[in-house]
């Protein structure tokens, strides 16, 4: 039973970055810009968030700053840095009409290299890991509680971070923004038929900028959420989660609620993979080396593949995504 609590809480904490980043990708693609740079944006968010945590560490441990208030600042800062980084993609693909995939690939190369260089600069030569302070996690002490049940303890507080709550709020805000506001309607129009949108007076460039910057914000927060979930400190990588988020977005058919379902689903498979040795009914493959490090971690990728194939008939991408908007063309 304890394992069940562990699996549920780990699933949620790993679903959060997937959800945030896939939602980010959704905003960008719904506005018509393919955002393959999500991986890079995540890395930038994670890096800046971790540096911020490091910087505020003294203030928090001395009690001058509340730990969760600090985390709120960290999260927002990560989002802001994500926005700044995503401007590079927006500028190349909207103003300069560059190939969006290539621009994104360049940013994906830039981010980890920049992270390593910056980590060196801040921490000194060869120090490639930024450690995460323990105060980042929400514990029962934050609420003045003591848990009697080990099950509830693991379920609620083993992997509890502020980012989880922020993700819930952002998800609700994103759904409303996309479907219940004028802005959302205009954004979607720009991804489907920018010429038509332009003809009724919508500024397509502005809308696309908004889409990419929102994806930068969500991607940056997703990055710090992933690093917190992974728990072993930041090593200039988010282990391909940005790309997995892209797959989640496609599997979620560019729709918020489906993306929520898809991210929970993938997180579950990832967690089952890493907890396989303590789940009784999972095959253990005795005598095979590397089951927990390589065999089960393959699971989410294979499942993604199969599901993408199965759902490809229903998959419907925004019509104008990937095509630079040119006012002169019809």
């Amino acid at each position, binding site marked *: 039973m304890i394992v069940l609590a562990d699996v549920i809480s780990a699933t949620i904490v790993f679903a959060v970055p997937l959800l945030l980043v896939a939602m980010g990708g959704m905003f960008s693609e719904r506005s018509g810009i393919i955002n393959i740079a999500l991986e890079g944006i995540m890395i930038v968010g994670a890096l800046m968030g971790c540096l911020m945590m490091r910087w505020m560490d003294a203030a928090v441990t001395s009690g001058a700053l509340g730990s969760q208030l600090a985390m709120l600042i960290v999260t927002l800062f990560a989002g802001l840095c994500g926005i700044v980084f995503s401007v590079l993609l927006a500028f190349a693909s909207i103003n300069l009409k560059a190939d969006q995939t290539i621009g994104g690939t360049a940013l994906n190369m830039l981010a980890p290299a920049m992270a390593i260089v910056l980590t060196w600069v801040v921490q000194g030569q060869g120090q490639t890991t930024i450690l995460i302070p323990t105060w980042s996690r929400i514990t029962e002490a934050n609420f003045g509680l003591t848990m009697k049940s080990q099950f509830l303890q693991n379920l609620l507080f083993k992997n509890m971070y502020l980012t989880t709550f922020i993700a819930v709020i952002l998800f609700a805000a994103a759904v409303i923004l996309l479907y219940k506001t004028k802005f959302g309607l205009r954004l979607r129009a720009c991804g489907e038929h920018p010429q038509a949108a332009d003809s009724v007076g919508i500024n397509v460039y502005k809308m696309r900028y908004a889409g990419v910057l929102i994806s930068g914000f969500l991607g940056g927060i997703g990055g710090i959420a992933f690093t917190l979930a992974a728990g072993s400190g930041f090593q200039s990588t988010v282990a391909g989660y940005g790309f997995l988020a892209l*797959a989640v977005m496609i599997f979620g058919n560019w729709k918020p609620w489906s993306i929520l379902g898809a991210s929970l689903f993938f997180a579950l498979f990832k967690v089952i993979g890493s907890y396989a040795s303590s789940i009784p009914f999972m095959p253990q493959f005795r005598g095979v080396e590397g089951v927990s490090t390589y065999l089960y971690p393959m699971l989410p990728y294979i499942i993604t593949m199969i599901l993408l194939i199965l759902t490809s008939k229903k998959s419907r991408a925004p019509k104008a995504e990937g095509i630079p908007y040119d006012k002169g063309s019809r």
Partner: protein
Amino acid sequence: MKKGMISVLASVISILVGLLFGLLLLIVVNPAMAFPKFGELLTAGVSSLPKLAKVLYQAAPLVMTGLAVAFAFKTGLFNIGASGQYTVGAFCALACAIIFQMPWWICLIASLVAGAVWGFFPGLFKSLFNVNEVITSIMFNWIGMMAVNLLCMNLKNAAGQLVMLPTAWVSSPIKDRTAALSYANPSAMIPKMGLDRLFQSNYMNISIFIAALVAVLLWVVLNRTTFGYELKACGYNKNASIYAGINAKRNIVLSMVISGAMAGLGGGLYYLAGTADYTIQKALLPMGFNGISVALLATSNPIGTIFSALFISYIQVGGESLQPVYAKEMIDIIIAVIIYLSAFALLTKNIISKYIRTDKTNVNAEPVPPAAPVPAAETGAVDSGEVPEKTVESEGEDK
């Protein structure tokens, strides 16, 4: 000819700006050492024969992964899965060498076939189910890397020893890398033909020549055969090529297969040199992603990949001389900036060539009846006088 010059010019500008950015970064991080280290970065590749040998040695697999990406680009696909194909190719080459004790050329063919198989899946899924090849090949990168690691750790010979690891061959506690070819199967090492003595370096072998040969071959296929023409036609306009009777679905699969084969062969070329063992690791191999840089710098021209691979390899060797003052990832930043610039260098190139075309040929001569009178009247007006005003006006209209 002119077009080619423009491409080269665009790439050179990207490179210069990228290097300048790198220099600025070095100055920001550590001003005192910036200029001497930047000088070393630029000259390390030719500072000695062994260094030059290393440039050539690393360039060979880069040419191949660059070709993989470039070939896919030419046919309208983005093969971001070169890393996985490269890894799988490397594994099959090493497996043939170590387990089956094959000579080097069979091992190379094995790597080619393995890469092709790993490229086949994204192509198949794209053509049958319309699943984006970018996503598929990213997934296959991870699946390939993990599967190769698993196989390396678990394959056993008849005696029950872990045959891919050094333990089966020499008494060694190392378990995180494959056995070295020097003792496992020297005949699987790519021949050096005396080049190692010439360059005074163990890294030197004929792999760069094999890679260059393949690049030329690919150029011929793309530019001088019907098959290549059909593949490119699918890349330019899929619907038009279907209308013209080309089997687009088959061509997508074939493009990815060939592309994958190139990357796989790259893996074979690198690991059969006998100077590097495959290390079991958790991150994707960067060689495949560097192939993207190579292809973009070469503007997807197969011959161009030879030179751009040499350049990337050259500054990577230079990057090693940055350490320990700077992280060698500085080079990755420079490369990323170059790629970012070349993303819109493609665009500037288009603009330049468009201008050249409108200068050379008369637009009015094109048979577009309804549009024809208007520009004719304009040019007429320009001829008859008021030259400055009218030209300014028409320029404004163009923009």
